[in-house]
């Protein structure tokens, strides 16, 4: 046993937590090491002094004052605790991705399949619709559409 080991074991020795062999080694070291003898003495004094420290006690009327305060308070009813812990939080990103996935695939898409064959982009299609409405609004109503209607829309009878 060396001095460092001795200092580590000094509290366990004082509390009787060492085995018989450890105790023997501890005492043998103490017998021939002046430094550790002093360590042991100061440790012994420390524990004794700590256990003999004066104890504080509350004032005699403490209990009455406490009683008065308790009468004003009422016990809170027991609440069932939600023991969810951190695990649901770990699922949050996965849930977010799932929602994003469904949103992306269910977002109403512009159905471009009915576009006239020459309408290549949405801008062209919008422009064509505007022109068509203008034509219809300005033209006198006729059961037969004007020739430009068929030309612009590309529809046939």
């Amino acid at each position, binding site marked *: 046993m060396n001095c460092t080991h001795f*200092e*580590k074991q000094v*509290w366990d020795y004082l509390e009787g937590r060492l085995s018989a062999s450890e105790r023997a080694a501890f005492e043998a070291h103490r017998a021939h090491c002046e430094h550790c003898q*002093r*360590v042991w*003495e*100061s*440790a012994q*004094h*420390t*524990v004794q*002094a*700590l*256990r*003999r*420290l*004066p*104890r*504080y*006690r*509350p*004032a*005699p009327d*403490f*209990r009455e*004052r*406490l*009683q008065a*305060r*308790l009468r004003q*308070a*009422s*016990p*809170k*009813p*027991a*609440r069932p605790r939600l023991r969810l812990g951190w695990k649901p939080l770990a699922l949050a990103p996965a849930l977010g991705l799932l929602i994003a996935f469904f949103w992306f695939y269910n977002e109403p898409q512009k159905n471009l399949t009915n576009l006239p064959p020459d309408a290549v982009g949405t801008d062209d299609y919008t422009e064509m619709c505007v022109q068509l409405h203008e034509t219809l609004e300005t033209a006198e109503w006729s059961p037969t559409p004007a020739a430009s209607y068929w030309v612009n829309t590309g529809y046939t009878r």
Partner: protein
Amino acid sequence: METISAETQLIERAKQQDESAFAQIVNLYADKLYNYIVRMLGNPHDAEDVLQEVFLRAYQGLPSFDGRASLSTWLFRIAHNLCIDHYRKQERRVKTVSIYQDNPDEADEGAEEWEFPDTQTPDPMQAVLDRELQEVVERALESLSPKLKSVLLLYDMEGLSYEEISQSLGIPMGTVKSRLHLARSEIQKKVAAYLRGETV
């Protein structure tokens, strides 16, 4: 076993708002908790407010007390948390010097009572030395950090086991042991210096 069963019955009665049962709990633990709080805060005046708060919280929280920890462990946990809250509030305020450090004579004027556990020795010289040594230890204890101090007080003054301290403070048993070792070593250094005749 009988003690546990008696304690369980007491708790059950207190949960049914039996005032006398709660008064019994106060009688059982007020002194222990008060001593711990005074030692933690170093101030008997604040300690009484904190002790009232401990029992108030216990009274209000008793319906939720599930009995997994012992009543003593639970109460010390409440007391410890309130002491830490108090420390934090104090840190935020302008730093003031403890009444003890400024006016050691006034420290005894508070409402608290002292209880000396068998300090009388037949040799007057030895009594003086004991008293001096105790003062050294008191000062060393005051200077410890709350983390070290709490473990030391609960173990050496209140006699709680490693496991009970672990539950009260919410720290692993290994941490309890290492903090206790550190705390005692800190005090031991000052005791050793005193024994060598150095000014501490």
